[in-house]
């Protein structure tokens, strides 16, 4: 009787997963953090529909970034590497140049056992592609983090302050309220649909600096707002309707 290696590996993965579940449920061990994934995990999956983001993801994996920082930027408990999902340095980087520069020189003076290496031999274009992937993933994962818990009760005044600080340079309150009404759900207000659309390369889009700036600014907001900010902003926008 012959078995393919893949079949055996799949059987083992299922067996391991079953034992893991039994371990967690039947044995009454209560875990306080989400458990690591059981079985083989292909870091490339799911393939991103935007080939530019996928390219950045592949570079992130190939250059070993995902080994310490995790491909979805979720650093496990006890990890030595910086938590990129909540890093203030990454949060302050609006266009990828800070990440690219950090990759170029590394962080040699860290007190960690293994300081972050320098990647001066990686081209600037590739470093920027990695930065684009980091920002995109931060946006997606941060949004999930905010939306998976019930938002606190928002304050209109605090929402107005946030709006005046973050949004008013592009939107009047009236415009923003109309856009929010059109978007419908809270989720669509907080992360407008155009942020996850595949980049258009029509000639008109190529020269549309306004759309590019809007995408970049909104992505930056989604990457960084707190649950309080989100709740306050929603209440404020609804108060205008």
């Amino acid at each position: 009787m012959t078995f393919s290696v893949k079949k055996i590996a799949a059987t083992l993965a299922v067996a391991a997963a079953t034992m893991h579940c039994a371990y967690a449920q039947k044995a009454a061990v209560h875990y306080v953090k989400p458990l690591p994934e059981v079985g083989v995990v292909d870091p490339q999956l799911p393939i991103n529909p935007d080939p530019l983001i996928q390219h950045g993801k592949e570079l992130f994996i190939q250059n070993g970034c995902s080994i310490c920082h995790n491909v979805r930027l979720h650093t496990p408990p006890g990890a030595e590497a910086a938590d990129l999902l909540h890093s203030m340095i990454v949060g302050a980087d609006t266009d990828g140049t800070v990440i690219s520069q950090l990759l170029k020189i590394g962080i040699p003076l860290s007190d960690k056992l293994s300081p972050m290496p320098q990647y001066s031999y990686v081209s600037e274009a590739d470093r920027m592609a990695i930065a684009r992937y980091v920002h995109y993933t931060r946006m997606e994962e941060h949004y999930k983090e905010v939306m998976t818990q019930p938002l606190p009760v928002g304050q209109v005044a605090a929402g107005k302050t946030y709006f005046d600080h973050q949004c008013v340079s592009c939107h009047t309150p009236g415009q923003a309220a109309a856009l929010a009404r059109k978007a419908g759900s809270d989720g669509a207000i907080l992360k407008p649909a155009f942020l996850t659309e595949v980049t258009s390369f029509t000639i008109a889009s190529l020269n549309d600096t306004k759309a590019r700036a809007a995408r970049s600014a909104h992505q930056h907001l989604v990457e960084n707002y707190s649950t309080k900010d989100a709740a306050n902003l929603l209440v404020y926008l609804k108060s205008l309707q």
Partner: protein
Amino acid sequence: MNLTRRAFGRLAAASLPAFATATLPHLSPSAHAQSGKWINSTFSGVTVGLQPYCYHDLERIPANRPILIERMVQNKIGVVELHAAWCEPLFAYMYNTEEEVRKAKYDWRVNTPPSFFEAIRKEFSDAGIRIFSYYASAPEYRGNISIDLQTPPEEIDSFYRAAKALGAERLIGSYGIAVGDRIGKQAHNHPGMIYGLHGHDNVKDPDAFSTEQTFEKGLAMHPESRVWLDLRHFTAANGDPIAFLEKHHERTAALHVGDRRRDNGGSVPFGQGDTPIIEVLRTVRDNKWDIMALLEFEHGTLRSGTEEVQLMFDYCKRALES
């Protein structure tokens, strides 16, 4: 140490995966055991083993141990350096505070009988794999350090006992000089055991093993201490591994084989960095030094872990056989 009923139940439950895997003979790749053969990964006198950290697509948790064994059989690698994370329960995921994690780890380590580790040893030996060394780091609440300056001697002793039960006569850990001294001190309680000093590339930290001078300091601490020279990190710290081995080969037990660029450069596939992997392996071979070559690399890949390990393993095999 007295255990409460609740604590015992929790620890017993946490130990379940090892017993569960040990009782699944139909899933165990037992062909090697039946034929009584070990997997041979020795080439021209130099054994190439694996630090399974290289399977970056496989979490280091007890539930994944059957897949690890299957993969090593597939890659035809007969020697493993087993990280404690493949054996120990996931304490860091079970408790909220560092204090609780510390207590649970202490209780589990001090009270777990050798039979627990013997069962794990059997899983590997049934597949034709020998456990060369036990790596005393495991994920925990913060800091990825399973032994530190607060760890009592009896808990450190438990790692030596675990290593012995696993059939390994070597304990290794990624610790600096202060913690390494505490671990090394306990080795004399366990005749035949050695403690491996494993370095990284932080040359700014005087406590870290990184340069030749820091390793010399570590070797001077205890007669049982041996160097685990990580070729990648030593190169990134601008060290010369061949010159190091020429001087210290008698007290070097193993190499971690991987490639990095100098000047704190990143990890890269074998042959693309500044680490003289081929030259080092041939130096060990030609001088008949008793040093184990353990694959341990950290470069990223779009291939599966098994494919990448195979490529790097074959690179070393070619270097030794030609």
